[in-house]
Each structure stands twice: as structure tokens, then as C-alpha cells.
């Protein structure tokens, strides 16, 4: 009996996940990439920078939704969710792409380095894994609960992105300084 109930719950959860994923994927495909040339960089991997941190709280803010709700119009609310979820999904994609690029660069730099600190590397990798998991969670979460429903995760992901960028930058700077020192004739 428990087995049947468990299987039903698991099937329902899986179905819910599938619906959320499909909705998020559809919302992302609905974005007018073709007509908005500035987003095309994402497709080609050319979009290098993560979104400025102050905009994460703006995109996932519940203040704008509260304002639209006060206007008491179903159509406006529907349009707001459609628009804002689209922007939020783009933010997730951009954050994910930016951090992948940072990690690729970091791995390349690590290969050139002679004195790798295992703990630092493990910490960066752990943060990276957390961030990727947060992005996957947000992708599904936006489909299920809208941009405002994943605000906490988004702000956490944003902090992680800043931290990874910072650590990778410091590592790069240290490596470059050592390379320059080694290149100098003794």
C-alpha cells in the first residue's frame, strides 16, 4: 500500500517537475531573441559579464508585483508575470553562462599554476556546484512559482556569483604576478 502511494506521489512530483520545466522552457523560447539583438550574445556564448548585482533584487522584487496587484486588473497581472518571468529566466541563463565562463578560465589558469591550494580549489568547485544547482532550481521554480517565488534563491545565487568571480580574479592576479616574477632575468 505504501509502495503504491509512494509511487503515485513520485509520479505526481515528476509530472509537476516536467510541467514546470516545459513552462520555463516555453517562456524562454517566447523571448524575442531575434528582434532584440542585445540578447543574441547569449546564444553564441559571447555574453561575458554577469548581470550587475543591483538588478537581481530588482528583477525578482515583489514590490512591482504588489503595485500591479493594486491596479486590480487580471490582464495586467498576466502580462506582468509573462514579462517578468521572461526577464528572470534570461537572468538565470546569463548567470549560469557567466559562471561557466569564469570556471573555464579558472581551470585554464589552474593548469598553468605550479602551486595549487587544494582547499581553495575545492571551495571554488563547491560554490560552482551550488550555483549550478541553484540555477537549475530557479529554472524550474520560475515555471512553478514565478520570478518572485524564487527571490531568495536568486539573491543567494547572485552572492555566490560575486564570490566565485572574486576568488577567480584573485587567483588570476596572483598567477600573473608569479609568472611575471619568474619571467624576470635573475
Amino acid at each position: 500500500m505504501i509502495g503504491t502511494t509512494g509511487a503515485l506521489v513520485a509520479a505526481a512530483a515528476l509530472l509537476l517537475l516536467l510541467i514546470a520545466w516545459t513552462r520555463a522552457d516555453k517562456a524562454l523560447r517566447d523571448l524575442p531573441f531575434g528582434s532584440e539583438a542585445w540578447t543574441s550574445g547569449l546564444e553564441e556564448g559571447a555574453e561575458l559579464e554577469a548581470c550587475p548585482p543591483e538588478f537581481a533584487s530588482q528583477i525578482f522584487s515583489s514590490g512591482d508585483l504588489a503595485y500591479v496587484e493594486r491596479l486590480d486588473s487580471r490582464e495586467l497581472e498576466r502580462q506582468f508575470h509573462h514579462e517578468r518571468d521572461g526577464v528572470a529566466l534570461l537572468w538565470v541563463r546569463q548567470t549560469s553562462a557567466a559562471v561557466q565562463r569564469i570556471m573555464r578560465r579558472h581551470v585554464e589558469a589552474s593548469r598553468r599554476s605550479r602551486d595549487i591550494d587544494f582547499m581553495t580549489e575545492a571551495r571554488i568547485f563547491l560554490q560552482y556546484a551550488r550555483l549550478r544547482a541553484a540555477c537549475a532550481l530557479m529554472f524550474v521554480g520560475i515555471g512553478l512559482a514565478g520570478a518572485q517565488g524564487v527571490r531568495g534563491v536568486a539573491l543567494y545565487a547572485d552572492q555566490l556569483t560575486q564570490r566565485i568571480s572574486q576568488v577567480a580574479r584573485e587567483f588570476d592576479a596572483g598567477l600573473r604576478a608569479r609568472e611575471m616574477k619568474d619571467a624576470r632575468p635573475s
Partner: protein
Amino acid sequence: MSAEVKLMPLQQAYDDLLNRSLSRIPSELGRLIYLASTREYNTGHYYHQGLADRFGPEAAQKALEIAHRQTFYKVSACSLEDLVEELERYLASTKEEPLECLNAWQKLEPYRIAVPADVNGTVARLFTSNLRLALAILRFRQGQNRQIR
């Protein structure tokens, strides 16, 4: 932009732009539209005769470019409520029939050309998305006002 653009003329050109031209425009959105209009469509270069005469074409171009980007980020960071107010102020300042302006903005989306080059893609998308929403809200309010009358 060449490295010959010295910091001082650039700062002076920027201050002059802020104090003479931009301070006269009553809304942030209006300032953004004005700055975007100083950009040549074909080349993407900025041009302002008075500023170029006083500080040189390169300093003028750079000052306009910086001011455009800063104003764009400022408008994009506005809450939806503030943006609706900005839009109302801008439409009131154009001296055109507000309803006609609203129709044109919704149909033609001219605000898309107000996005500077090389800005973050997500912020650009947030900007156009918020403006679409602000226009829809203004349209909704107008409908409500008509019903009341």
C-alpha cells in the same frame, strides 16, 4: 575611442552636458531619449555640435556615451511604479497629444533605440519589458478615467 581623450576635457564636457542640456529635461526618461537621439543610427557615434565646439569631438562623443549609459542604468533600475510616473512626465513634456504618443509607443516601440551599445543583455531586456508594462498600465488607467467620466 583613442587614448588622446584627456581626462580633464572629458570631465568638463560631461559636467557641461549635465548642467546645460540634461538639467533642463524634466524626467530621467526624457534625458535618456534625448541622449539616444544624439547617436547617429548608421555609425553608432554620438554627436553634439555645441559640446564638440567647446571640448572637441572626441571628448564630446565620450561624454555623451557615458551619460547615455549612466542614464540608461538609472532608468532600468526604477521600480515599475516610478517608471510609470517617469513615462507620464515624459509624455506630458512632449507637447504631443498624450494618447497619440501612447499609441505610437505601444505600436512602434521607439524606446528600443534608447538602449546603448554594449550594455548588459538582461538589463536591456528588463528595460524594454518594464516600458511595455508601464505603457500597458497607462493605457489601463486611461480606460478607467474614461469610464469614470
